[in-house]
């Protein structure tokens, strides 16, 4: 059964899930909890909107600190990797055939790589708007 149940034994990778891939998902999880919390605080506490959200001007100003685009890019890579490995794990639980799993893995890899490339371009574009 899945690692999410409250069984009386420790859990690990699912059948068909590579241990390294499982470890990447496990390692990116706690990192994401911290970075995501910081992301929520930055976006919902310090923006100019009444709800705390950042306006365009706020975002451009925020991205002028070079550490911010770097953190956002690291966050993007981590969150995309974690979510797509997780999605593959959910699909694995439905016991797909070997061929289906191969196609799914390729599609998720393409989606992940293109999302990261797009996100890096977007972060650099936003950072360059203030200069």
């Amino acid at each position, binding site marked *: 059964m899945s690692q999410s149940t409250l*069984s009386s034994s420790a859990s690990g990778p699912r059948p068909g899930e590579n241990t390294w891939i499982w470890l990447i998902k*496990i390692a990116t999880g706690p990192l994401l909890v911290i970075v995501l919390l910081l992301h929520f605080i930055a976006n919902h506490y310090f923006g100019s909107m009444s709800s705390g959200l950042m306006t365009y001007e706020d975002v451009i100003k925020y991205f002028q600190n070079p550490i911010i685009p770097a953190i956002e890019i690291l966050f993007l890579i981590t969150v995309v990797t974690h979510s797509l490995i997780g999605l593959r794990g*959910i699909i694995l639980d439905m016991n797909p055939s070997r061929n289906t799993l191969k196609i799914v893995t390729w599609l998720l890899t393409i989606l992940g790589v293109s999302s990261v490339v797009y996100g890096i371009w977007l972060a650099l574009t936003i950072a360059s708007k203030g200069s």
Partner: protein
Amino acid sequence: MNNTRNQPSARKFWSWFMPVGRQAGSWAFALNRITAIGLTFYLFLHLGVLSLLAQGPGAYDDFLVLTENPFIKLGELAVVAAAILHGLNGIRIILTSFGVGVTRQKQLFYGFMLISVLVILIFTARMY
């Protein structure tokens, strides 16, 4: 019997959403899956919306006006709540995966859920 169990099954997927006859472990499992799917969908939606930043202040700030709509705000709060629930439930899974608190998973689950509710309430107070 094992052959039957290992067949591809959409029924397994839909069973995550069934609220009847569940125990804590089953709720934890369903919560983890449902929030994971929701957050993955939102991640790509969010990346798409952020492209408005590349179009300039008009496009992005016009969109932000929409976020004042109570339904959109509720959706936004749902995303924050899902992330907190998924994150803290995930920490529990990691702890037990490495042998920490394996015999006290139920208590760990309830503890992390309590912390989640408190953090969600803090964000709710700020957003409203």
